[in-house]
């Protein structure tokens, strides 16, 4: 069993968690059972999220509680608003993108592995309803006392995961999630109508593409590669991307690659030369030119301007 990552010290990493869960071959992300994130120490994530975050697919189910402020997010093409006092669930494998976040936003969230989610569903006695039947995004306005209770459960879970032996971590997480989910069971009672669940082949292809990006963008930057992986022509792939997102395939690839590079920069472990190697660029100068072409700044300029 892999260890849980419950360290919320690095503020930037806190907010890149969603990106991390898409990049499971990236630097430090491991497919762990549960992530816990919050910004109780008051960081303001606005600029970081809006500028840098490409669309991504979250591998894990995410449960968010918004204590203050507001978050606007697009999930599978549908815009949603997470208001203060809301507790929201985002299913796994959704195409997500942050639109905006109010400056005073305070939130806490759990990002839960699918295996653990299945165990929690089983604990709750939901065996016949497959998770895929649930809505992609459910949101619930909670009274203040309930929200504070959840926050205290979150904090307890945080301390417990830090405290107990590794053998018990999963059970503790499972138990707390079961309590929280049981409290919201009625959200999962509704049946999702068939029409909204169906995904056309093109949409499925597009999501496959995004998943592949999550997997290979640290190595491959050619549209040709991804198209071949999917069994379609590069032209068709580009057309799909434009239809579903407005950007063509190579823009998507660029976005993902640059996002990964930025994550690596934030880790503070590598210098520019090493980053170029890790990301499989042929030379450092090629990497520099590529970075400048996409972002407008050279890597060093970017690192300086972001205080790295």
């Amino acid at each position, binding site marked *: 069993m892999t260890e849980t990552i419950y360290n919320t010290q690095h503020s930037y990493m806190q907010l890149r968690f969603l990106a991390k869960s898409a990049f499971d071959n990236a630097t430090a992300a491991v497919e762990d059972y549960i992530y816990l994130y919050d910004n109780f120490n008051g960081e303001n994530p606005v600029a970081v999220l809006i500028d840098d975050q490409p669309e991504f697919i979250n591998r894990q189910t995410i449960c968010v509680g918004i204590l203050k402020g507001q978050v606007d997010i697009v999930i599978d093409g549908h815009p949603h608003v997470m208001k203060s006092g809301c507790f929201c669930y985002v299913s796994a494998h959704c195409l997500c993108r942050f639109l905006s976040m109010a400056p005073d936003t305070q939130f806490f969230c759990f990002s839960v592995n699918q295996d653990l989610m299945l165990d929690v569903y089983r604990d709750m006695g939901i065996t016949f309803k497959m998770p895929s039947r649930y809505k992609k995004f459910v949101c619930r306005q909670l009274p203040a006392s309930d929200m504070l209770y959840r926050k205290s459960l979150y904090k307890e879970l945080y301390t417990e995961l830090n405290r107990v*032996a590794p053998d018990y971590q999963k059970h*503790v997480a499972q*138990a707390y999630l079961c309590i929280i989910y049981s409290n919201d069971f009625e959200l999962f009672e509704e049946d999702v109508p068939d029409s909204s669940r169906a995904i056309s082949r093109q949409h499925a292809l597009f999501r496959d593409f995004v998943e592949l990006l999550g997997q290979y963008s640290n190595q491959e930057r050619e549209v040709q590669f991804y198209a071949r992986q999917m069994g379609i022509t590069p032209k068709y792939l580009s057309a799909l991307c434009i239809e579903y997102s407005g950007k063509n395939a190579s823009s998507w690839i660029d976005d993902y690659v640059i996002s990964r590079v930025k994550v690596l920069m934030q880790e503070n472990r590598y210098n520019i030369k090493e980053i170029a190697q890790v990301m499989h660029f042929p030379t450092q100068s090629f990497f520099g030119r590529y970075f400048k072409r996409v972002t407008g700044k050279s890597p060093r300029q970017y690192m300086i301007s972001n205080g790295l």
Partner: protein
Amino acid sequence: MSTANTQALSDINGRQNIFFKMYHERHVMSDNLEQKSGVVEAQEPIYDQSFCAMFIVLQGSLNLCVNGLDLTLHPNDYLVVMPCTNVEVKASRCIFFSHAAQAHIIFDQYEEVNCNIPMTKRAFSLRLYHFSSTQTERFKEIYLIMKREVLRDDYPMKENSLRAITKLNMVALLEATSDAPMSAVVPYPMTSQRQVFERFIELLDTYYTHERSVQFYAKRLNMSAKYLSMISQSIVGKSASVVISQYVAFRVKQLLYRSQLSIKQVSEMLNFPTQSFFGRYFKRIVGCSPRQYMKQNCRNLNASHS
């Protein structure tokens, strides 16, 4: 018994202010955490033989009688009682909380969390641990979460939620005993005499409905009645016949208190020759007649009971 019984025991005798809640015959919770005086009066048998219970004392001392053994729990003591054990709460002065659940629930959660050490039902009828204050605080936190859950309105997954909290408790218990898993501070050394006594209790559990003579049990244990009495005397300080009669009295109280049986039905169930004999037997041990006992303590007394 009604399904979600929220009556505080103050309903019974008007003096106590103890929180007591039984959920669907599966979970029983009681505490006097909010009471200031810490006065606990003797309680009736709240749950039956299929429950596994735990008691934790925060302050003062809790007096219990477990299978004839008089036991006092002190602050930061944690007592786990296996099924088929008679636990009577006697008058005490303490702040405590306790949770009991159907044995299979507890055992299931234990096995889920720890498959290595199998839980044997009759290894000890009770285990007494002593923990640090921080550990006891943790148990109290978990208890309060469970209390809050139990008090919420009924919804389909409430049972699952309670089980999850039971699991949390199990994790906490295993964690707290991790350095020495089986070394509970048992309130008695497991000598051969104790083993004989435990076996005696087991036999009582099986045969109390038919046999109430010391001779019968002594014969089953391959010893003389005198010797059995001597063992009882040294283990719990009571002679064998007293142990038998107190055991029977406890089970009768349990039946009268919890089920809808009439006095006549109970006396037949226990194979007493006549109802009047049963009445006199009960009065000799408990101090009041069965009818008086039911009047005092049973809320569900049906007027048509004979």
